[in-house]
């Protein structure tokens, strides 16, 4: 067709737009919150805190005082100590479980996206099966059989995260595998292992890590829900979810017993979501097309 369309050189198309987006104040507040909670959780044993499981039946639901900064719970246990030790549980499960998803799901997605064919069909198919179970129900059922403990909880929630990580890794690999640098490496006779590890992995890992933070948020929520129902972390170990569950019974007399851990949980989940979402937007391979 007779058009006067003139080919536009590449530099014009790849104008450096969008990349230098400012991260924003909220992002930094959220990161700071994550850092504070993380250090409190790690340092909990060496901090001058009271024992979170020591009961004091004479001082049940005590108000804020010099001795108990945030008062005591229904069994006279120090609320502040329980909050901080609760962070330990929530973050342990919340951080380790998505790592299982990241490693297994990431590897499966990378391989499926690179090799395609039968293997991809198989991987995607089995993930569909796993996705057929509503996650909370699956987690509940398995924990019920396996027994309530932190490691069991972690493994189950980790397995549940695999499909999502697989999808992210596969999608990223599929877009990358057609890029010039991969095709060039293939043309130069690089081995599959080399292409996967040297060319693809470094590019896929960024979106995966951003997704990991969102996975942390989801896991903390699910762990909280299970513990809230009394089916997660076994008592008397404190977890934010179980603290909220216990506080529910005294909503009329001491609502703070539910609302303090609730606020901590909400703020932490929101912070991970904020940081994760910001990083996801930055590392989205499709962003380049802006």
């Amino acid at each position, binding site marked *: 067709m007779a058009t006067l369309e003139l080919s536009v050189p590449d530099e014009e198309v790849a104008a450096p737009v969008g990349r230098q987006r400012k991260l924003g104040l909220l992002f930094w507040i959220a990161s700071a919150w994550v850092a504070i909670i993380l250090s409190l959780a790690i340092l909990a044993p060496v901090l001058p805190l009271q024992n979170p499981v020591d009961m004091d039946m004479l001082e049940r639901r005590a108000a804020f005082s010099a001795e108990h900064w945030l008062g005591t719970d229904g069994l006279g246990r120090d609320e502040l100590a329980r909050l901080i030790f609760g962070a330990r549980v929530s973050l342990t499960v919340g951080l380790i479980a998505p790592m299982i998803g990241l490693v297994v799901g990431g590897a499966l997605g990378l391989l499926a996206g690179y090799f395609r064919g039968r293997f991809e069909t198989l991987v995607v198919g089995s993930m569909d099966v796993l996705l*057929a179970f509503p*996650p*909370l129900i699956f987690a509940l059922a398995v924990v019920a059989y*396996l027994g309530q403990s932190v490691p069991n909880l972690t493994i189950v929630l980790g397995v549940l995260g695999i499909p999502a990580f697989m999808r992210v890794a596969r999608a990223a690999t599929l877009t990358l595998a057609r890029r010039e640098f991969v095709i060039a490496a293939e043309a130069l006779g690089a081995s599959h292992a080399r292409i996967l590890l040297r060319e693809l992995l470094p590019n896929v890992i960024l979106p995966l890590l951003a997704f990991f933070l969102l996975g942390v948020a989801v896991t903390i929520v699910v762990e909280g829900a299970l513990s809230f129902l009394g089916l997660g972390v076994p008592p008397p170990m404190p977890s934010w979810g179980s603290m909220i569950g216990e506080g529910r019974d005294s909503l009329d007399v001491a609502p703070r017993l539910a609302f303090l851990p*609730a606020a901590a949980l909400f703020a932490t989940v929101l912070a991970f979501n904020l940081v994760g979402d910001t990083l996801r937007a930055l590392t989205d391979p499709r962003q380049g097309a802006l």
Partner: protein
Amino acid sequence: MLNFIVRRLLAMLPVLLAVSLLTFLIASLLPGDLALVILGDQATPENVAALRRDMGLDQPLWWRYLSWLGHVVQGDLGRSFRTGQTVLQAVAERIPVSLQLMLMAEFIGLLIGVPVAIACAARAGGAFDRFMTGSAFAMLSMPSFLTAILLIYLFAVELRWLPATGYVPFTEEPLANLRFFVLPALTLALAEWPGIMRVLRSDMIATLQEDYIALAKAKGLKPSRILFVHALKPSSLTLVTVTGINIGRLLGGTLIVESIFALPGIGRLLVGAIYTRDLVILQGVVLLVACGFVIVNFIVDMLYAVLDPRIRHGHA
């Protein structure tokens, strides 16, 4: 079209089979002897062995799976050894409660999410849009058990407007029934609307950039018609998808919400079965829920085809 349905139905079979296998394996392979659970810790080894034989637990795994599957296909999912109720009876009794909860939740969720999405998309980047997008993001970080606690505190403890727990069937006392359902449904809806709103909003913003929207404006159509017919209709597909995807989350949500608000639905049945270690009920309900989920996704696919003329006429 018929061809299409049959093909999709056939594609569903292997997934259902795999789901049943996984459910069976979870229940069978994991530690914890069913016979021991039933008889309790004080049972003698002889009694346990006898019960294992009765229940076929001494048979090889593949045989147990096939015979279990055989029963399942005939509609026999087993019988609770605690209440004597069959799984199907127990589920049938509770399904109306869960369905009512999910329908009300999804309805309220759409009632909030759709208008907000349209208003945001119509003035993307404006003050209202930024405020609602931020609120939706925050709400996505709010687990439903937190929302439930907050709503109970506000409406049941402080204001005393609504009951915190309880249930009567709709057929007996419709108004009281609805009052019992308001807080649980609202709890779930508050978790639903941000997802609905976000997806629909970005979809509509993209649609509003389309040439055919510019042409609709050039045709002098009323802004309301452009927004609700020309821009919303192409997005209805997305809405169906979101609603379909939500059902999985809603099912998980009913579990928590039914427990908190003491609604006798499927979720409560499941949680109760876990508390009492009623493994037959647990296995049966998990299987039914997972199959139900697969079927819902199938229906969503079908709706997709009905809604999108391009798919309906095989131009995919």
